[in-house]
């Protein structure tokens, strides 16, 4: 079943077109990797899926993006509810300058998910456990989240995102600021998370895409060149450009 369907998506930054007629289906409960050289539009596409491009004044998006068969690009789409369903992890860990507890409790609080203090405590613990962070921080959850290491901060951001149980998690190069050990932890986590969430991950690391994803889409110069199962893309791509990129001939 397709969780997300993108049809004829064009994106403009002012006069410059960043994405050309993207058509892509994303399967539920799988990890879909978006790869391609810098500036190819993969992050832009990712940001179309929770309308984060709205924040950029000059950005114009056209086309249809359906999540659960509902077009999110309609005028009356409630972006607050959309982003409750579609969470996002950023390139650089960006915890709020608050305590670890407050970082996690913020989402449930604004969406009115927890009814009581104990319920909130449970959500915080559960989220931290799912993000494989609980054991490391359980004694200091009332200390600032910004005091954690880079890898811990990124897992804190993941815990924050899953605290409101989104159906889809978008990850924009989540490991690019982390060391190999922290990266391995996050990758393990991604595999765990796909049981409950649909994950789309933008990455520069081909090996990471090969390790964590089931499907892969290859972007180049704002176009989606090829999309398919990760196995097929890496072992037997249909397009010469994909072959060249995978084998490291450009990009």
């Amino acid at each position, binding site marked *: 079943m397709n969780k997300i369907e993108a049809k004829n998506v064009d994106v403009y930054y002012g006069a410059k077109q960043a994405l050309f007629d993207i058509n892509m289906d994303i399967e539920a409960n799988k990890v879909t990797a978006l790869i391609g050289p810098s500036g190819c539009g993969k992050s832009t596409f990712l940001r179309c899926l929770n309308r984060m491009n709205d924040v950029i*004044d000059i950005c114009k998006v056209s086309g249809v993006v359906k999540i659960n068969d509902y077009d999110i690009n309609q005028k009356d789409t409630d972006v607050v*509810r959309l*982003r409750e369903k579609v969470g*996002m992890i*950023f390139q650089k860990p960006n*915890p709020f300058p608050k305590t670890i507890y407050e970082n996690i409790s913020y989402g449930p609080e604004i969406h009115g998910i927890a009814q009581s203090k104990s319920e909130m405590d449970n959500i915080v613990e559960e989220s931290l456990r799912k993000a494989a962070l609980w054991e490391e921080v359980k004694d200091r959850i009332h200390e600032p989240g910004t005091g954690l290491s880079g890898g811990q901060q990124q897992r804190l951001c993941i815990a*924050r995102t899953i605290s409101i149980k989104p159906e889809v998690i978008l990850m924009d190069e989540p490991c690019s600021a982390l060391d190999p050990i922290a990266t391995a932890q996050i990758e393990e986590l991604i595999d765990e998370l796909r049981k409950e969430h649909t994950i789309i991950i933008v990455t520069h690391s081909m090996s990471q895409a090969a390790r964590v994803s089931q499907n892969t889409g290859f972007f180049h110069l704002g176009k989606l060149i090829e999309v398919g199962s990760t196995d097929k893309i890496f072992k037997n791509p249909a397009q010469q450009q994909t072959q060249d990129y995978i084998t490291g001939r450009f990009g």
Partner: protein
Amino acid sequence: MNKEERLIKRYKAEKRFQFYGKAAIFMALLFLVVFLTKIFSTGYTAFQKTWLVIPVNYNADLLYLDPDKKPTTEDINDADFYEFGIETFITLDPDASEDQIMELKKMFAFTFERELKYYLLDNPDSFGKTVDVKLTASDDLDQVFKGNYPRDIPENRRRASDYQLKIFDKLNEDGRVISEFNASFFTNADSREAELAGIASSFMGSLFSILVCLSIAFPVALLAAVYLEEFAPKNRFTDFIEVNINNLAAVPSIVFGLLGLGVLLAVFGLPRSTPLVGGITLSLMTLPTIIIAARASLKAVPPSIREAALAMGASRMQTTMHHTVPLALPGTLSGTIIGLAQALGETAPLILIGMVAFVNTIPGTPMDPAASLPVQIYIWAESAERGFVEKVSACIMVLLFFLIFMNLGAQLIRHKFEKKWN
């Protein structure tokens, strides 16, 4: 030039540069020390007040009261203490001529009537007895006693006459001239007589003005800055507004004074000379300073925080109120304090809206006429009497203390917030 020489040259250049830096700091400190020393050495005597302790005979006949009956408060209030005072002064020199009696009277502040009356009201038992009473010395003798007034210049160029000095010296020998902490400097309003003038009116005026200014300028400026920075679309119109806010910050303060005069007083008919009008005028002046500081602090909040909140499904207002504004608050507050400190030292606009008027009452609300500290400095600096010279410096000290206190408060607030957010 070989490599070695080049290296030596570089080190020398760095040493020179550091020396220039230190010299600059030294210069700044030197100016500060000279300025403060001058102010303190001129002003510290203002915190001392000279009293003349003279024997007073609260004789019933002199007061035209019934000697056999203890006088009631009403009786004392109705009694004539002017004549009584004159009679008392004559006891200092029983042989005094008419002219000399007037000189004797001028050795005391004109409040001697009140002081004699209040002493009797506070000590009803002294009725019919001779007691020592403390009377405020005139500013001329006060200055002589403090050594601010040379005695060796010819009499006709001196305010205190030879006769007054002779009586004064005799009192001094008897230990009847005392110097005490000048509480009335803080509790009295302004006066034409230097020995009685105080800063209560101008201090309260400044305080009320600043409070009015803060309560108008801060919320308006914060809202304007938040809207411009977080919500307004970036287009020509908002650029135009931004340029104009920056221009507004550079407008001379006297122009705002004219605005206050022309609009607040003339059009809206608000009461003249009041801290309310002064505060509103100052808030117009402070507004751009706070807006600029608040916008700079909002800009300094990393966009990743906004993205994090938005991606969690927070609305734009929640993002702003929960994350951006609290993070920008310390910077905004310090900008606000800078703006208020500017406003506190502002004179020109207050003069235009009439806060330069002679006010001898202490304002109880922002709607009462009042002076302000800088204007008080200006008024006293203009006065001819020697007694006001030390008052000017003392008033500057109070103003500086006020400013230091405010900055300290700002630092504390900043510190508290920064601890919480980092």
